[in-house]
């Protein structure tokens, strides 16, 4: 168990208080979540069963570009043989061990990337307009609904964008080294809503 007190989030340099003057946008960081990258083959029944047993998610029924909430875990589709599991803070190592145990002898890979990325939550009536300033994906609720996710770029940073509530609440998973850039970009881009 690590000591979060001494940890530092990738967005430590961003002053989130500055977002308080922005109308229609609530921006927070979901710090120190556990992030596990999972690789495996869907046509490998043993793999799918091991995952289903461990976290209760049937990967075969998780559609491309969607995510699912299972107990405390969020599982995102990243590719036909790649998923991201987000856990509450400090549960990733335990889950990683559980998965690795379950996947013994099965072609797979479970990698802790918790320190490599963080989550920014953006909600409010201007949330969509803010993201649209740097995102080529159609975010209209008819197209991008609750439970959808997409790997794309926001301005010039690669992100995993997901819809928590259609058109109103989004989450952005951003790599650590790009987080500061994205934080500054969000701050700059939201200036028109102040």
């Amino acid at each position: 168990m690590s000591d979060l007190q001494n940890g530092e989030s990738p967005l430590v340099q961003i002053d989130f208080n500055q977002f308080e003057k922005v109308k229609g946008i609530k921006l927070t960081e979901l710090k120190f979540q556990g992030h596990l990258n999972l690789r495996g083959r869907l046509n490998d029944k043993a793999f799918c069963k091991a995952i289903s047993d461990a976290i209760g998610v049937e990967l075969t029924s998780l559609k491309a570009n969607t995510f699912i909430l299972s107990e405390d875990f969020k599982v995102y589709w990243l590719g036909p043989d790649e998923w991201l599991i987000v856990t509450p803070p400090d549960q990733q190592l335990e889950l990683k061990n559980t998965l690795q145990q379950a996947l013994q002898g099965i072609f797979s890979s479970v990698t802790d990337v918790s320190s490599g990325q963080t989550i920014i939550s953006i909600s409010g009536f201007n949330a969509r307009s803010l993201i649209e300033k740097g995102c080529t994906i159609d975010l209209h609720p008819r197209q991008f609904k609750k439970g959808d996710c997409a790997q794309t770029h926001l301005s010039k940073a690669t992100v995993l964008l997901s819809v928590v509530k259609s058109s109103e609440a989004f989450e952005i998973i951003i790599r650590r080294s790009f987080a500061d850039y994205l934080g500054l970009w969000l701050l700059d881009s939201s200036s028109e809503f102040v």
Partner: protein
Amino acid sequence: MKNNRLQGEGRINRNRPLNFIFNGKSYQGFEGDTLASALLANDVHLVARSWKYHRPRGILGSGAEEPNAIVQLEKGRLTVPNARATQVELYEGLQASSVNCWPGLEFDFLSINSLFSRLMPSGFYYKTFMWPKKLWMSYEHVIRKASGLGVSPELPDPDRYEKTYAHCDVLIIGAGPAGLMAALAAGKMSARVMLVDEQSEFGGSMLHSNETINGQPAQDWVSDTCEELASMQEVKLLPRSSAFGYHDYNFVTINERLTDHLPTGQKTGGRERLWKVRAKQVVLATGALERPLVFANNDRPGVMLSSAVMQYVNRYAVAVGQEIVIFTNNDSAYETAMTLLEAGLKVIAIIDNRINPGSSMADQLRSEGVKIIDQSVVVDVKGSKRINAVQVMSLQPGGDKVTGSVQTIACDLLAMSGGWSPVIHLSSQSGAKACWDDEKACFLPGVPIQHERSAGASNGCFDLKNCLSEGMLAGNEAAQQCGFEVDASIQLPVVNEVIFNRIKPLWLVPSMFKAGRGPKQFVDMQNDVAASDIMLAAREGYHSVEHVKRYTALGFGTDQGKIGNINGMAILAQSLQQNISETGTTTFRPNYTPVTIGSIAGMNLGGELFEPVRKTAMHGWHKQEGAEFENVGQWKRPWYYPRAGESMLDAVNRECLATRNSVGIIDASTLGKIIIEGKDSGEFLNRLYTNAWKKLDINKARYGFMLGEDGMVMDDGVTIRLEENKYFMHTTTGGAAPVFSWMERWLQTEWPELEVFLTSVTDHWATAAVVGPNSRKVVSAVCEGIDFDAQAFPFMSSREGLVNGIEARINRISFSGELAYEVNVPANYGLQMWESLMAAGEQYDITPYGTESMHVLRAEKGYVIVGQDTDGSVTPVDLGMDWVVSKVKDFIGRRSLYREDCVREGRKQLVGLLTLNGSDVLPEGGQIVEDPNASIPIPMIGHVTSSYYSANLGYSIAMALVKGGLSRMGETVHIPLADGKVIAAKISSSIFYDADGEKQNV
């Protein structure tokens, strides 16, 4: 000063007078005016001098097509060149001045060009100034002063420019009757609609029309419709927005002006927004532009487009003349005449080239005393800065020659209409090939290539009733294509039916002079292209319309073919004795109207957000310690840490000495890190790297070279075997992303049978390299659970332990030749780890060092940096590193190493260079020659790739790629410098320090 404001209402707000300055004089207009309408209200017709002949010019049109009233807006940082006065909304305090006038508008020194215009035919600038070539620079200076449009701002643009991506089902461009109707139809079907129009108000021609819709003035229908559209949730209305580019895959770029209409002090936020729209379907309802008629002196102030005259009267309540003559070849000018009469202005005569152009309007006009002179043309006008009369002649039967005597009619305004050209610019940009319509005498949009359709005047439909029905049809059809069902409740508004007589094309008005002789008959006023220029071009052999365009400058500038194109092409066709379809039209390209560079560049130009800056977990610490940073790819890496009073060299020398003598620490987090997992990982590495991997022990590290398939060095790094089937690869900082993509490519496309998964962990791990004889003491003080004994934890091995209770991986690897450990922890704890190491190292005076010292230390050992000592044309053999290339297994790039070119004699090889005078430091990139006194060009035998002063050695060292270098040890070569000095250096081994490698094995 004369006031031309009419009693009628117009769409101006008389309760809001606005003061403005034009060419230094103060005037007043009203809210709702454009700069052009306000100037005309103040009886200012003369607004510019033309660019080539410096002829006086007045306002011709009322919109984007305006060729003459091009003004410089505001001053200093906020100045805007080339604004069309017809499109500039008036605001309090606006300042504008004419372009192309020196020393002033009323007396223009360069108008002397006008007297010699016979001597300045088309192509004049090409012909005169192209020879002799060496004088071009000074010619250019003169031409720039004498011609060209506005002045570019010299100060940085203080404005902010927003950018937004948008998606919709139906994008409708143009909010005239067709566009509004299309939006209404698609909107009612619940489609996501965007309706854009370049004007501040929606309505297009309806804003100045006399027609009624559903028994109400057209303006009322416009406001009702806009209100209804505004209430629809999925309809987005964008006024003041120019769709200026129609690109592939229905990608349309739109420039929205957010603050240009506001007084300088009231502008807040972004000035403009660039909309990048992907539309499933597009409706082009961009309207039509009226064509001028081409007769002698048709560019004089007081000659205007008929539709513009009507617009100024009806929309802006401005009488642009008191005694008016109309010259037309179609019915639309009769409506202007009606409007003028209603406004109480005097229409003296209508000159029509057609025979007995009878219509209900003609009859009515006659009854009101307007003389309709048929089968006649205006051959010339009198007056220079403002016309005072027109000269009229009759046409011979057949219509291509004039006859009889000249009739002079006094007037102060000539309203002309040469017919209408649909605005097919966007349709043409979308890829559709425009087609000529003889009946309508205009180009029509071609068969759509993309998901678009035209409606209304832009589709060649010039009457209101059909505009509305075409609009509705287009809206329905576009939304249907997106999967929506037609809303049956929608009804077409009721309008009066008007019967139009056919236009009689009149491309070049006949006169008593031979074609091309006599006073200039202008085709393109902005570019001073006259009919004679086009005929000359044809005579000189320019037959392609694209060539004529470039030779004459027809359609250049802000015009982009709006005013002169069709007349010009028709005149060219006549000269070549072709028809217009054979001649064709030039290709319209973006942008339809000028767009600011700021809008295209967007909000992050030049600022810290222009390119992502990647930062490590310890970035804040480095910054606080005063590090200077270096860009490595997108990363910011500490370059060196200067102390007070230290130069860069001082700092680097100190850092290098401290590291070799005690201990240094460098942030190595930026190196690419990839987890390779699966039973075929070893086999995969064998194919990827030049050396063998399967026999590497667990927790051992090995250095590897990756080649391109062409055999050239692509990347290098240390890879560690973590488990039986799991490896941890390091790439170079810059190579991380491309190498990861490269590896995925081989796995996915060529070797799908290999059971290997890759996961990037570059960002997850923070890495501190602790380097120097005291590094073991420092690292062992911080890391728990690891036996740091030299034998227990040997060089090129890896251990897991804890740092501050956090999982850590320590790799005993070295890029300096010193005893060194790389400490990795999850990056959230990177700063904490770094600070712990600094604290533990305090007693050894641990010294943080940057990339510069890292480069010096590795160069002392002769370690290459891929991308610095290699350039994509260097093999491992060239680097003298055959030892890392397996002779027994295949790997990517292997076959290429045996290609003829890779095994030939005389390839450039990596060697060391020692300057004969040890204090001389060679410049990196310096060219190497054998004999500096050889005759020029001196054969070059290589170049310096890395060069530093080494404080540890006390002299400079360099690495270089030299032809056959490995067999030239001890030879002296020369490096000539730019200042003429020549430095002599001796070729040596590239290992300068601790050649036996003892220091890293302690």
